[in-house]
């Protein structure tokens, strides 16, 4: 096997600029429902002009099994369960900040003497804070968010949390992603929505190799979109065999059925979004490459390479890369209703100041550019971006110029259709518990708002209870 023969098939790098090839088909990236479209699959398979040739090449049994397999129970064969065509309303883009961003130094009560004394040397200089109102201001690196605030596109929900927080990254993030407090469940708050609406896995997509809990349902798991082009390996025969392999046999053990479903969903993803992803893989929808490279990492000295808690460790803006893919899909009229992206590294126990400055700068640049790029487009002007993290941090600075795990935090809701301003109730710095901010607003209030205003469904069954909603969208 020569090198050149291998070159195209082992393409794992993230920055490919190959044009779409014949094997990717010519679909526009839009397709209703999740049932395999025979014509599109033939385009995808390529090379064969007529179904008969392909069927002849592979044998009638395989052909039959592929296009005429009976639909089995949804839990057994989740990926081919009948699904309604998705009527896109407003794409919801979730930004998960892993590690526990310090909310107190993000939306800062900069006029509070309690803040100044508890934070000491970690308090942001009030002269540098970007003032909003009510005595709160933004971290100095968030100049883009200030513009969004001024144009009434930035909503800040204050004092968000839940009862009996326990400081654990993992349990806290599980609670946030599952939307359930007290009794751990394996499904995500949007995974249950996928289940209940019998949605295609392509209705909710995550950008990256793996799938966060929040898009995992009992029956349906959202799709994960790899960065870069989406070119299936192999020739048409191998691709058709792969699709056949993704058919389930009855009585498959659960995990093997899940593996087959992932393969099946990959074919779906390729048919519906492959050409869009591949043809736009090197585009720059957020117009960031023209900008001064240092603006991508707000703190040019990012090579210090301190990533508190892992992730978020890159010379470039990883969040912007993910949001570029989201932007390309939305601009191409793709069908997902929900997108999930993430940024890590917020676990700032030590030397918080430079780390948080760098990360908030990346967040600011990426989200602002994304919202700007979407604002004047017919498919993008309805987007709503929700930014959250697993917990806030302790009010007092520790002896390592950092902060330890804490409780309540703020949630950002951003978008052209959002009515900007403060929502919820700020935490009372004069009434801390064990040195922590006490939540005023149940996080499920935010989720109920997303269900009600964005997804257009009754929140109650998904949140197992009734919660108020905000009139912000």
């Amino acid at each position: 096997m020569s090198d050149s023969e291998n070159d195209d098939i082992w393409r794992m790098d993230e920055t490919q600029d190959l044009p779409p090839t014949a094997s990717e088909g010519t679909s526009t990236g839009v397709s209703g429902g999740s049932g395999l479209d025979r014509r599109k699959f033939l385009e995808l398979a390529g090379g064969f002009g007529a179904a008969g040739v392909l069927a002849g090449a592979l044998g009638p049994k395989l052909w039959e099994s592929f296009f005429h397999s009976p639909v089995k129970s949804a839990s057994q064969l989740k990926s081919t369960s009948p699904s309604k065509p998705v009527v896109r309303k407003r794409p919801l883009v979730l930004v998960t900040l892993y590690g526990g961003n310090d909310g107190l130094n993000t939306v800062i009560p900069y006029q509070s003497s309690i803040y100044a004394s508890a934070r000491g040397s970690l308090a942001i200089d009030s002269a540098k804070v970007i003032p909003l109102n009510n005595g709160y201001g933004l971290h100095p690196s968030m100049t883009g968010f200030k513009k969004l605030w001024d144009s009434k596109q930035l909503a800040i929900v204050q004092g968000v949390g839940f009862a009996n927080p326990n400081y654990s990254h993992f349990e806290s993030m599980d609670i946030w992603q599952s939307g359930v407090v007290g009794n751990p469940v394996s499904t995500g708050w949007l995974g249950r929505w996928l289940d209940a609406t019998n949605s295609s896995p392509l209705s909710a997509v995550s950008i990256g190799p793996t799938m966060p809990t929040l898009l995992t349902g009992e029956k349906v798991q959202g799709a994960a979109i790899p960065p870069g082009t989406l070119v299936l390996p192999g020739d048409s025969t191998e691709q058709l065999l792969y699709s056949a392999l993704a058919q389930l046999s009855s009585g498959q053990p659960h995990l093997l059925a899940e593996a087959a479903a992932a393969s099946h969903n990959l074919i779906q993803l390729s048919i519906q979004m492959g050409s869009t992803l591949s043809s736009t893989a090197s585009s720059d929808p957020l117009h960031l490459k023209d900008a001064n490279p240092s603006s991508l990492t707000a703190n040019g000295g990012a090579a210090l390479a301190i990533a508190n808690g892992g992730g978020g460790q890159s010379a470039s803006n990883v969040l912007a890369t993910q949001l570029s893919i989201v932007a390309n899909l939305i601009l191409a009229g793709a069908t997902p209703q929900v997108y999930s992206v993430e940024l890590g590294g917020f676990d700032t126990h030590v030397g918080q100041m430079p780390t948080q400055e760098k990360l908030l700068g990346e967040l600011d640049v990426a989200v602002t550019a994304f919202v700007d790029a979407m604002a004047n487009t017919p498919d993008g002007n309805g987007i709503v971006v929700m930014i959250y993290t697993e917990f806030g941090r302790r009010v007092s600075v520790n002896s390592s110029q950092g902060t330890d795990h804490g409780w309540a935090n703020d949630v950002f809701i951003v978008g052209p259709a959002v009515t900007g301003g403060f929502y919820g109730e700020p935490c009372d710095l004069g009434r801390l518990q064990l040195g922590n901010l006490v939540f005023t607003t149940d996080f499920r209030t935010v989720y109920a708002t997303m269900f009600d205003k964005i997804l257009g469904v009754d929140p109650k069954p998904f949140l197992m209870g009734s919660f108020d909603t905000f009139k912000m969208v």
Partner: protein
Amino acid sequence: MDMLSALALLYRRAGFGATPTELAQAAALGYNGMVNKLVSGLQQPDSGADAIPTPTLLQPPFYKPGALNTPEARQAFYKTLSDERTAITNWWIMRMVATNNPLREKLTFFLHCHFPTAISKVIYPVYMYRQNQIFRSFGSGDFTQLTTAVSTDPAMLIWLDAGTDRLPDPNENFARELMERFTMGIGSYSEYDVRAAAFAFTGWHLNNQTGEFAIAPRLHSNLPQTFLGHQGVTTGQEVINIVTNSEPSAKFVVASVWSRFAYPIKPTDPLVAELASAYAKDRNMANLLRAVFRHPNFLSAGSASGLIKQPVEYVIGALRALRVSPARIPPSKPPLSSVLNSLGQVLFDPPSVGGWPQNEYWLSTSSALARWRFAHWLSLAGDISPVADSPVASRVDAVSEMLSIQSWSSSSGSTLKDAVANPHTLVSMALVSPEYVAN
């Protein structure tokens, strides 16, 4: 479960899958004999893996004061670290591919998942290498000694900021994760215990000049703490002794091992209590592994279909089955680490102190594509002669034997039959089949 299926399962879980030759030799030893052979291999030299040369790595103090004052010098320095990172990743991958004592490399991988530590924060590859060697040399012994060795090693000191614990408000990072993630599990200690432990760890630090652990007496709190009901606790070592010898820790460690070698289980499961009472007597990891492999439930149907291969297990197992030496992959190819990157599991760089989740986490559409790309490449680059040289009618049997898969579902079986004309395609499809993706 028949003997060959049991041995194949054992080889997948205690190693990276069996070759037909290994399986035949194992059958001669019998199941229990094979368990003993694998477990005793934990203490023995490894002629395969030990032949892999150790990369040359920068040693502390890494650079002289002022040596990195120019952008060019800094760039060259980071380039060196980046090259070293590639080198240690390849070193470990090659060890796992070449090992003759697969359980030792597998246990090392398990411990990397149990004590997840990431180079993105640790920065210096030599520290990750040192931690990796601790897993190899202490991993099969006493869990308290292992935890002590890992906790006082540079990688962990940097990763969880233990080296920066200072009075009067010591940060809680290491104290909390030690209990929550490494030794006891949440719910078995109070916030008061976290605080008390954080005081006991004050003064622990890494000497940046020597790269050695030290305790700074001036920074250490001698104030006696009551910790988990024990009075008068003042040192970090006491904290480690108390947590690793606690009752919740026995269950926690057993559940962690069982969950990664057999199938996911909660510490509250009766099976855990049963194994934990034996483990609590010596806290010896080799004995625990033997007990897991000898447990009847290890050979149950639920166990056989209870795990998905983690990307590292998938890639290493496939390379071994197709006899591809990573050293012979041409430099023009992206390194194997980029394959693992696309699968979401980068060695030495877990996403957080929580490590990598299991099973469904690895079954995304994105990882399905990455697996297929790798499988397709491997079917062209690897040695598929056992399949290609077989008559067409017996090629499915040949690929089953090559990948040590004992049975296929009806859809996989019929798809593979449809693929026999092209042995490369057949192998590629077998590698992405649900049966092979499972562990």
